C-alpha cells in the first residue's frame, strides 16, 4: 500500500519577509506570491513570526477599533487594536509560530489547522529557517486522488486482509466513491473492513452494491442513492 501523503509532499516555498518590512510591501508580497501568509525572519534568517492577510486586514478596521478603545476590551481586542496601528512586520506578526514537521501526514496537518483555527502551517528546517508552508488549498490534493490509485490501494488492502477470498470481491471506484461488490462468503468479513477501506487516502465514501439485504452496509449516513 502506498505511503500516506506527508506535509513535505504538499508544502510550497513560503513567502519570507524581514521584521522591518513595511505594511505596503507586505500587502504587495502576499499579492505577488498569491499567499495569505508571510514567514517573518530575523537577520539570521530564522523564523520568528507570521503575518497573515487577516492581520493586514485589521488596518481597515483601525478607525473602528480606535473609536471603541475607551470601552472595556478583551486582551484579544487590545492585541487587534495594537496590530491595526502597526506599520512593520514586527508589529503585526504573531509569535511564536505554529510549525509542522515535514514528516507529519497531511491529513494530520489538516486536523491541526482546524483544531488551532489557522489556515496554514509553516515548516522550519533544522536551523529554524522557514522551509515550507502548507495552505488549506494544498490539502485539497488529498481529495483529488485519481480513482485508479485509490482502487489499487483498496485492492492491496483487501488482498492483505482477506487473502484468497479477496477474489470474491469486485471493487468499483468512481470519483472517489468506492463500491464493493461481494458475495455471502465475504460479506461479513467485508463489513469489518469498511472503516479501513474508508480511511484509504482520497476515498470520499464507501458503499456496498447489490443485495438490498445488505443495506445495513450503508452505515455511512450520506443521502441514499446519491451515486449516479
Amino acid at each position, binding site marked *: 500500500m502506498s505511503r500516506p501523503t506527508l506535509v513535505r509532499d504538499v508544502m510550497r516555498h513560503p513567502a519570507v519577509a524581514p521584521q522591518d518590512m513595511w505594511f*505596503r510591501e507586505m500587502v504587495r508580497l502576499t499579492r505577488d506570491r498569491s499567499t495569505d501568509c508571510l514567514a517573518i525572519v530575523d537577520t539570521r534568517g530564522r523564523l520568528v513570526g507570521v503575518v497573515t*492577510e487577516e492581520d493586514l486586514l485589521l*488596518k*481597515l*478596521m483601525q478607525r473602528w477599533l480606535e473609536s471603541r478603545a475607551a470601552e472595556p476590551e478583551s486582551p484579544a481586542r487590545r492585541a487587534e487594536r495594537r496590530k491595526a496601528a502597526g506599520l512593520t512586520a514586527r508589529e503585526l506578526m504573531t509569535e511564536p509560530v505554529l510549525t509542522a514537521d515535514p514528516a507529519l501526514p497531511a491529513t494530520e496537518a489538516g486536523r491541526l489547522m482546524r483544531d488551532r483555527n489557522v489556515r496554514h502551517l509553516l515548516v522550519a528546517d533544522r536551523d529554524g529557517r522557514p522551509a515550507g508552508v502548507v495552505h488549506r488549498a494544498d490539502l*485539497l*490534493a488529498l*481529495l483529488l486522488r485519481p480513482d485508479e490509485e485509490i482502487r489499487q490501494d483498496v485492492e492491496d488492502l483487501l488482498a492483505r486482509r482477506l487473502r484468497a477470498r479477496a477474489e470474491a470481491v469486485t471493487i468499483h471506484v468512481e470519483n472517489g466513491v468506492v463500491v464493493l461488490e461481494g458475495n455471502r462468503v465475504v460479506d461479513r468479513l467485508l463489513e469489518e473492513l469498511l472503516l479501513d477501506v474508508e480511511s484509504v487516502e482520497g476515498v470520499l465514501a464507501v458503499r456496498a452494491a447489490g443485495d438490498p439485504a445488505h443495506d445495513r452496509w450503508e452505515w455511512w449516513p450520506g443521502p441514499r442513492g446519491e451515486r449516479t
Partner: protein
Amino acid sequence: MKTAVRDVMTTSVVTVTPTTGFRVLAALMRDRGITGLPVVDVEGRLVGVVSEADLLLREERPLPAGRDDRSWSRREERAKATSTVASGLMSRYVVTVRPEDSIAEAARLMHRHAVQRLPVVDAAGGLFGIVSRGDLLKVFLRSDDEIRRDVLADLTAGGVPTDLVRVSVGGGVVILEGDLADEPTLRQIEEIAGAVDGVVGVRSSIPRVPSPGTAE
C-alpha cells in the same frame, strides 16, 4: 472618493449549483485558487457557499452518531463530512455585502464572521460579485502621490486651510508638518488624513497649542 465594495470586487464569479459534485468543487478550488464557491439556484439566487474548510472536513473521519451529536454545529459538520454534492456541503447561512458598502464595513464583517470572502448581492438578492480579503487590501497599493492628492483635497473640503500644514506621504504613511495648531484642528486634520483610502498611518510633528479657553 471613498472606495466601495463594487470598486474592488470580482464580477466574473465562478458559481456552482446545488448538485455539483465533490470532486468538481475541489478541483475548481485548487485550480482556480478559490477559497469559497457561491452556490446558486436555477434563477441565479445565492443559496449557499461551499468553502475549502467544508471540503476538508472529509479528511476528518466523522464519528458514529452519538452523544456528540447533541451539538448542532457538530451534527452539521458531520453531515457535511459525509455529503458528496454542493447542497450537502455548503453553508446556508451566508453573510453578504451590498455593492455600495464601504470596504471598511466589508473588512469588519469578514473579521466578525471569520470568513475570507463575501458574496456581493444587490437588493433583489441577485449575485453581483464576490469580494475577498485580497480585494480589500488592494486599496493599500495606491501610490503615495494619489494618497497625498486625496489628503489635500479632503482637508480643503473639510475647511482646513492647507497652507497651515505641509503634507507628505511615504510608504502610505502621511506625515504632517506645520508651525502650530490648536488641539481640535489638529485632531480634525489627523482624522481627515487617516480616513483617506490607502493610508497606513498618520504621523504628525505639528506642535500643539492649548485650545482657546484652556487655562495653561
